[in-house]
């Protein structure tokens, strides 16, 4: 497959990964525009999380290419992909429970990422300002000194989002950001997402179609590792194939 340069932020072409013969993602191609919010939906086992794993380098592709601003990601290591500007939030909140909220954010601050950089890293004004900025944004400015263990589930999700934001990624990937949240938390999160998606592209995996309709520019429906449908939330909802997959059986 020849990969040509595009204007897309992310171009996924012919992506395939197989685990012992089982193709979890099968010849998948899709493109994400600048500043676009793309939502990926699909039934369990459709390969949604695997797609994110592939993009961020956690899983190595068997075939195909993933290009981010025309840089091939499939050959890069995870940390290089992150440094190139791709941020990834996991399904279950993955934060450092033993550290405080402040330290969680500070560690994510994109400076002193090498061994000796980390040794020489100083907690200066720039770091402090940036951390409190982000903390405000994720509703945690009162809790900076709290150990992250002690946060509620929703707060942990926000904290992880904050840890991504502090790196100012160009492409943000969120795996079920509102799963397990209370109604009010959900509302706050939707608002948060709208605010943070202003200057960047976002890929969101989400089940809640109402939430999807609220935020999505474009929706991609995955089924058995392949794209079943793609379009606006409204179009997708009406697509008979999608209805069958979701409601059939």
């Amino acid at each position: 497959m020849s990969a040509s340069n595009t204007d897309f932020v992310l171009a996924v072409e012919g992506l395939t990964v197989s685990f012992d013969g089982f193709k979890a993602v099968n010849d998948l191609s899709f493109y994400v525009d600048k500043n676009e919010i793309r939502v990926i939906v699909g039934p369990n086992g459709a390969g949604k999380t695997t797609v994110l794993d592939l993009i961020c380098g956690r899983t190595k592709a068997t075939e195909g290419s993933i290009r981010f601003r025309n840089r091939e990601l499939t050959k890069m290591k995870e940390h290089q992909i992150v440094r190139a500007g791709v941020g990834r939030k996991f399904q279950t909140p993955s934060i450092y429970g033993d550290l405080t909220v402040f330290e969680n954010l500070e560690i994510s601050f994109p400076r002193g990422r090498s061994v000796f950089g980390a040794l020489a890293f100083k907690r200066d004004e720039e770091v402090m300002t940036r951390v409190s900025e982000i903390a405000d944004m994720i509703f945690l400015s009162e809790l900076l000194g709290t150990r992250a263990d002690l946060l509620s589930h929703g707060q942990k999700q926000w904290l992880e989002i904050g840890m991504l934001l502090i790196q100012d990624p160009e492409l943000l990937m969120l795996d079920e950001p509102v799963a397990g949240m209370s109604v009010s938390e959900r509302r706050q999160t939707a608002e948060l997402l709208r605010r943070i998606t202003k200057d960047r592209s976002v890929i969101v995996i989400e089940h809640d179609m109402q939430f999807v309709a609220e935020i999505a520019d474009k929706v991609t429906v995955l089924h058995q590792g392949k794209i079943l449908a793609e379009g606006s939330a409204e179009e997708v909802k009406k697509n008979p194939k999608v209805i069958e997959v979701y409601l059939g059986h």
Partner: protein
Amino acid sequence: MFADYSTSELMSIFAMQGFAGLILFSVFVLMALGLAIIFGQMGVINMAHGEFMILGAYITYLTSNIFADHMPQLFGSYFFIAMALAFVAAGALGMLVEWALIRHLYHRPLDTLLATWGLSLILQQLYRTIFGAREVGVTLPDWLMGSIQLTDVIEVPINGIFVMSLAIGISVTVAALMYRSRWGIQVRSVVQNRPMAGAVGINTAKVDRLTFGLGCGIAGVAGSAFTMIGSTGPTSGQLYIVDTFLVVVFGGAQSLLGTIASAFTISQAQSSMEFFLSGSMSKVLTLLFVVFILMLRPQGLFSLKVRR
């Protein structure tokens, strides 16, 4: 080095060397199977594995003494009873240890390593207190000693054949247990998803205890069999521990087939090198080879690529 020998002599020697490799292979399989079950299926690192083997050896020693004193006419067959007793004793001790120590540590694999190391020290001293610091000599029934003469040069040691059959027998039994029995299904389901297995009514605590007991029991049988070829003393168990772990890790902890394949690879590498190099150098080279391969393929020879 071979110039002075006739082709047929050389062929015979190579045949015998191949057989020596097979014996070594069987020894490795016996050593490693119990550990592979415990480590591979439960993720527990049992540093006291060697001491469980030696327990089997001591049981054999005691049994042989009892038979010699009270039932000399049955002495020829005591070995089978000794192996059964070794299995029961080591298995029971294993279950006790699982209950007392291991079950509290399932989420901390590296800590099981330290705790079982402590256990191994205690067992060693216990053996020393009971049986004395010196090695004990286990008298074997006559039919187990000696060899079968196949040709002029090729001689096959009977205990080698015995160890091989035992290795095959135990491997087959374990495989059958794992893949054919209800218990095997339970073990595998507990390994894959503990909460779910518990939720569908599997008594996970019991499965763990039985699995650990089985692993230790097999170690006991192996120890019993090794009285034919090795020494029985309080610290003899330590001689086996590094080799055993390497075999299991090299095989890719999760699969029994992997353990067997790795035992085969390592034993063949070692025994063929031993023939051309000095014993020490071949040991070093074998270990280096294993470490090197593990660096290239850290997950071991056989392991499934899993979707995370």
